[in-house]
């Protein structure tokens, strides 16, 4: 069974440019999460999808970030325009059942975003 896949693995862009990150969850997982880790800091929650609906986007830093999940399958996270402080590792995770915190999250390998 394929795990959570993220693309690209690395992205280097200039300030002001647009970047789109993609996440393919494990097939059949309705719950999809985006997290971010800025260098030297903790992993922070960004948002949570249940199927195609945004369940919670309270962790999104500002309106330069837009997440979508077309048809409840893969998800994209777009940053437009990117700023220096957006640099970090963006993780996607998926889970099968409800949003209980004790449920196992399966993480992708992350996208390392560098904004220069």
């Amino acid at each position, binding site marked *: 069974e394929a795990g959570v896949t993220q693309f690209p693995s690395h992205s280097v862009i200039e300030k002001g440019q647009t970047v789109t990150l993609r996440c393919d969850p494990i097939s059949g997982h309705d719950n999809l999460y985006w997290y971010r880790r800025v260098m*030297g800091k*903790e*992993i922070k929650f960004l948002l949570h999808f249940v199927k195609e609906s945004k369940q919670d986007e309270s962790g999104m830093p500002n309106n330069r970030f837009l997440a979508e999940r077309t048809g409840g399958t893969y998800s994209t996270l777009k940053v437009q325009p990117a700023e220096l402080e957006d640099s970090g590792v963006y993780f996607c995770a998926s889970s099968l059942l409800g949003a209980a*915190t004790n449920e196992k999250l399966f993480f992708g*390998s992350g996208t390392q975003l560098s904004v220069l």
Partner: protein
Amino acid sequence: QKEVEQDPGPLSVPEGAIVSLNCTYSNSAFQYFMWYRQYSRKGPELLMYTYSSGNKEDGRFTAQVDKSSKYISLFIRDSQPSDSATYLCAMGEDSNYQLIWGAGTKLIIKP
């Protein structure tokens, strides 16, 4: 003050040693406590989870939660070089799926 404090290390120990990793927290509403392991250039992988206080053992790994002290621990027995990774604690409240993470401790097991 951070909600979850975790020493970033690195912690370097010889192979076969017992490793103790710890986190402290400030939110008394936390009920779920987890330990994740993250290898370089990989995503976090769930190792252990515990609900409320107590101990949980799985092979060479033991997780302990002391809610009175707001302190959680992960013990690794007979440590192996393959245990070298970053270990992250994460915790959450009932009915709130947002996990709060520690910064992670980098562990190095020397052969």
